């Protein structure tokens, strides 16, 4: 109960509250390909908070299995044969859509594609009518990208299918965070001669850029901290969220002061519309203050990793020569997108039988 005269609500979305991440299942990530796959506790993946530390570890374990599948001469398994996955993209993103569709096809699912440019949305049909119509065709999962925060959560009220958030407004992009975790885990594993890290404890990760408008940042803060990493957000005050209350992070405007302590530098895309909103003086000024230049790359520890969710604008977030350094994991992030999305689809829809 609250103190007299000071009523408060203490409701915090799951994942944002203080709490020890539980990554025990990550340490069990060995054995038969899909043995021990647990029934998912959620039907939908809307937020990293839906998975928590355990769920992330489970997706990582499944991703290992699908990475092995990807190495086969015929990189396809019948795990979701007879199932139908619809991709519903109300905001253009060919990369993410193709990544999901490839993942679904490698699981032998049937794929339906719905994009805003070819769709009823341009004729004025509401989101509700659109998704109800697609759901009525008999689908098992709906992968949705929407320009409005929270749209996938609303869709769960209207459809019977499992809903997977492929990026909603400035809210979350959970599969991006999962593939980022998988990519870090893979890099650490290689560095440790094949020993898979149980979690991210002891890692210090900086997320740099437009935190305020980034769904990638919100999902990655939840994911990295759920796995035990320490996260520092780096941005000018105009690109920080108005409040970081409840965020298990530290924040700074000074990139240079943080560089020497970092294990991972995660750069976010800067969109030019932020200039019109007077959040930045210019892209050159941003590059001068926050761009990963050669000098800043040299100030990093030798083993530090550089990541970017793409599409990357060379000369703004990162200098061209830094983008191609071995420390850069950008192409690995893209490749891992398919196996992690296979893992997510299997986690939500699969029966455990391949």
């Amino acid at each position, binding site marked *: 109960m609250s103190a007299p*005269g000071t*009523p408060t609500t203490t409701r915090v979305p799951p994942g*944002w509250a203080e709490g020890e991440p539980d990554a025990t299942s990550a340490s069990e990530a060995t054995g038969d390909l899909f043995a021990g796959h647990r029934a998912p506790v959620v039907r939908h993946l809307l937020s990293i908070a839906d998975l928590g530390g355990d769920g992330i570890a489970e997706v990582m374990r499944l991703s290992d299995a699908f990475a092995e599948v990807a190495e086969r001469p015929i990189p396809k398994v019948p795990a979701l044969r007879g199932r139908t996955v619809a991709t519903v993209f109300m905001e253009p993103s060919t990369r993410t859509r193709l990544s999901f569709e490839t993942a679904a096809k490698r699981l032998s699912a049937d794929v339906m594609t719905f994009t805003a440019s070819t769709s009823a949305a341009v004729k004025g049909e509401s989101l509700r009518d659109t998704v109800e119509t697609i759901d009525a065709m008999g689908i098992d999962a709906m992968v949705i990208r929407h320009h409005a925060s929270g749209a996938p959560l609303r869709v769960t009220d209207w459809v019977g299918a499992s809903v997977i958030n492929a990026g909603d*407004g400035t809210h979350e992009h959970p599969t991006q965070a999962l593939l980022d975790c998988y990519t870090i885990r893979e890099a650490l594993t290689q560095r440790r001669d094949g020993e898979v890290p149980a979690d991210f404890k002891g890692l210090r990760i900086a997320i740099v850029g437009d935190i305020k408008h980034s769904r990638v940042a*919100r999902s990655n803060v939840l994911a990295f901290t759920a796995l035990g990493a320490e996260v520092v957000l780096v941005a000018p005050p105009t690109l920080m969220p108005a409040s970081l209350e409840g965020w298990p992070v530290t924040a700074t405007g000074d990139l240079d002061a943080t560089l020497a302590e970092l294990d991972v530098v995660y750069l976010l895309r800067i969109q030019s519309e932020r200039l019109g909103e007077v959040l930045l003086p210019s892209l050159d000024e941003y590059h001068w203050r926050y761009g990963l230049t050669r000098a800043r790359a040299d100030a990093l520890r030798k083993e530090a990793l550089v990541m970017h969710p793409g599409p990357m604008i060379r000369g703004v977030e990162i200098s061209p020569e830094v983008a191609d350094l071995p420390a850069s994991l950008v192409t690995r992030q893209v490749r891992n997108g398919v196996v992690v999305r296979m893992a997510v689809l299997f986690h939500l829809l699969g029966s455990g039988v391949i």
Partner: protein
Amino acid sequence: MARRNAPTQIGVIVIRGGTLVDESGERRGDVLVRDGRIVAVEDAIEVPKGATVLDAGGCVVAPGLVDLHAHLREPGGEIAETVESGSRAAALGGYTAVVAMPNTEPAIDSAAAARDVLALGETALAEIAVAGAITVGRRGERLVPMAELAALGVRLFTDDGRGVQHAGLMRRALEYASGLGVVLAQHCEDEQLAAGGHMHEGAWSSRLGIAGMPALAEEAMLARDLALVRLTGAPMHFLHLSTAGAIEMIKSAKADGLDVTAEVTPHHLALCDAAVASFDPVYKVKPPLRTARDVAALRAGVVEGVVDAIATDHAPHAPERKDDPFDEAPAGMLGLETALAVAYGALCAGAGEPAAGDDHGWVPRGGGAPLSMRDLFALFSWRPARIAGLDRDARGSRGSLSAQGGPIRPGAGGNLAVFDPSLQWVVDPSRLASRSRNTPYGGLRLTGKIRHTVFAGAVVVRDGAALR
């Protein structure tokens, strides 16, 4: 004229066994209404032959409620509400008078437009007063013909839905209005500071990734207007204030003797921005639901008397519009049928609060000082009646409309609400009288309900059901 009479079947009514609450206090008594007026108030009234008897046992009998702020959507938004459906919702909520906001399509910015809405009000279930716009088309460029509208009885002027952004124009509006006996009312929202926002800017907007409207957007315009009131001496009314800072500013303006009044809404007294975690646009409203701390400050402002009125900001929207994503859905929520119960739960000791865990963003009352029944009805009835100029009998060609807001005594108007403070009910959006369904309280168990409403000497609601 701004006030019209509804042709109703006026008979003899006895309201029996209730506790009478008006400005003079609380007492037990029966009320006899005949020919549109209260004719007797006594301990026990013998029922005349043919009289309608309304049982008020265990209930509060109060002057009918007066809403300073309702969007009845007619003309132009009839898909969401009409004067008739809105007035039925009002009657069910205990209201006997409603000020219809002018952000219709077209806006109420001319005598002709005002006359149209007043004509629609003639057959309504409550008195329909209209507010006029401050600027033509609510575009913030030219003043409406205020004197002509004032001659029709229009008392409140506002561009509500928007604030008047241009400080120089607002100054001229206040100067021009002086001496017309009218009050300018502001929707305080600096559109440059609020730009692009859909909810309160704070911890929740940051987590949810929804663009925020800072408290400052409200407080900056309020500060500007208080300075203009100081300069011009014109009275002002402030609509739906929602922040702790705004309440402090009104408190200090009143201490300085400025001629200002302020209203708050039931939803800003009950709900906080945590509700938006559902991304359900039913919680999207302007000004936005604020923090639990702001809710506590509003409640304290009400209890301390800083706030003059509770007004609904009843804002119907057709169901399909509230199926849009949060960013795209229109702002506004229904209020007329739930206002008294929500405020009672949020402010009064002994009122059953909705059970904890209900996912509506309801802020628990905690240990704040409770409001008395008399003070609750003051905020819902006689104080808003005075702000709207409805506290006097209408005269001349306006027919027989009598004063709103009490008192309950022989000779006063037959406008009464009978409230059962112990009745529990669950809000069912599909059963509301409004044409729209956008109540944030759907499924919530509220305590306290209007049992009967008497408007202009006729029973319009009996045992919780509208009679037409």
